[in-house]
């Protein structure tokens, strides 16, 4: 009797705890700890955020079938910004769900990366778990994580189309390298919606 009551109690308690912990997805604030992740790259190798502890990390939400994301790739904006900041680790994350028409196999992504000179790792997050943890909304959507593992910048790569454009991520990386806080630290991400 006692053990069944104890089992019952455990069961009920875990139900209560599960019910209470189901929280809504929220946007990731600057200053918040960057959520940890472990994802596979295009070769199937596991890459985790913890691998880069102590380094500045840039996360770029990427989708080769999104014309905005592709436009930045073809104009070499990401590659140029990454090359200007060898102190930072640049990672692409593709959160397109496998059943979406935008989804491409890792081999096709590799060809796309080669064609556009993308030398940084691209990680697959087809379940969208990491995308939701970061509140990634668009491709591209950029996050800069500082050496302490906290979000230092959340937003767009630059101020968008038009004759003059400011590269916010370049500015954020330059500020961090100089020991300063990025300003702006948040902008509105612009692009296609992430195909969760």
């Amino acid at each position: 009797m006692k053990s069944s009551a104890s089992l019952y109690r455990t069961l009920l308690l875990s139900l209560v705890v599960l019910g209470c912990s189901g929280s809504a997805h929220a946007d990731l604030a600057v200053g918040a700890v960057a959520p940890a992740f472990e994802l596979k790259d295009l070769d199937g190798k596991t890459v985790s955020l913890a691998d880069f502890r102590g380094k500045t990390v840039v996360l770029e939400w990427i989708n080769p079938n999104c014309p905005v994301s592709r436009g930045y790739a073809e104009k070499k904006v990401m590659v140029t910004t990454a090359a200007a900041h060898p102190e930072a680790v640049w990672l692409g994350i593709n959160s397109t769900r496998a059943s979406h028409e935008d989804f491409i196999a890792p081999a096709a992504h590799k060809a796309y990366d080669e064609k556009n000179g993308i030398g940084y790792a691209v990680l697959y997050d087809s379940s969208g778990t990491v995308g939701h943890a970061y509140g990634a909304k668009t491709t591209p959507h950029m996050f800069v994580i500082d050496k302490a593992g906290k979000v230092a910048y959340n937003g767009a790569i630059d101020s968008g189309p038009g004759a003059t454009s400011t590269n916010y991520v370049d500015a954020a990386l330059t500020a961090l390298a100089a020991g300063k806080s990025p300003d702006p630290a948040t902008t509105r991400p612009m692009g296609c919606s992430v195909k969760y």
Partner: protein
Amino acid sequence: MMEKSVLPKLALTAAILLGTLASPGASPAAVGPWVKNEQARVRLVGAGNELGLEFELAAGWHVYWKNPGDAGYAPRLDFSATPALRNATLLFPAPHRIDLPGGLVSYGYETHVLYPVAVELAAGGDPVIPVTARLDYLVCSDQCIPYTATLELSLPRSPRAADGESARLLAAARSALPVELAKLEGAPVVTLSVRSARASAGGRTERTLEVLVAGGSLHAAAVEIFFESHPLFTLDRPVMTAGREGLRFRVPLHVLNETRPLPAATTFAWTLTGFETPVPAGADGAAATAGTDGTLAITGTAEVDLGASLPAGDTTSVFRGVPRIGLFVVACVGVALFLLHRFRRPS
């Protein structure tokens, strides 16, 4: 063989002649040529200092409001190639909510939209201004495609020169613009407040923007609320409840940057859509005109106290501030404690 090759030539000549007749400068047309792609066609219309940027969209495609929502961006017009036009400002008709997969949302327009463009004309010069504008825009369905277009318009200086079509389009677009609350007769009272609560000492502060829409003579047909992008917060999807005191919208706020202190107060710019006027628009009732779909939108701004200095663990504010989350957490903890207690006792 000869006949076959002559005919197209004749047709071509005729087309060139017609084209010349209809080209800018020959007659002050107040409607520019469409620039087309698979998803949309777009043109400038206008007369005098009143211009419009008109889109017709293929089924399933949309363009954006000033706050595009989770993805996208509003059209950007650049008139720097036309020095006779100054201080061009794109104005935004009442937006619609467009739901996207993954819980994302966009604010914009489907099927057709005409964005009015307010401009100043430089003094003097020809009666017709050749206008060239660079347009950058994003058109989306589930997919998004960015386009850059060059738009042209032979703009008559006199607003009276607008032809029937452009005058009708501009008038409809003007009436689809949200009306400023202060300028609207019979408008409801719109009250904004931010409720703050800390679930525990040292815990994260939960903030909810509350908007109460009460009174007035307008019929609240299918009211929705939209906000402009905010520099300090992202705003969750509003939850509306209709009660005796009016319509209440609750909007959870999330701080964008935890490393910077919040000011004591901040401004929210809101737009409420979907009102209906009880009587048709009066003869000179600019304030009581209705948009193209017969509904009326209201817009306003409000400075709201952020109540930044609530004491930690203030239970009053937990109950008052976030009744849904606060009470739920309290109830869960209560049930858990009760169960622990209950099943421990028999031993």
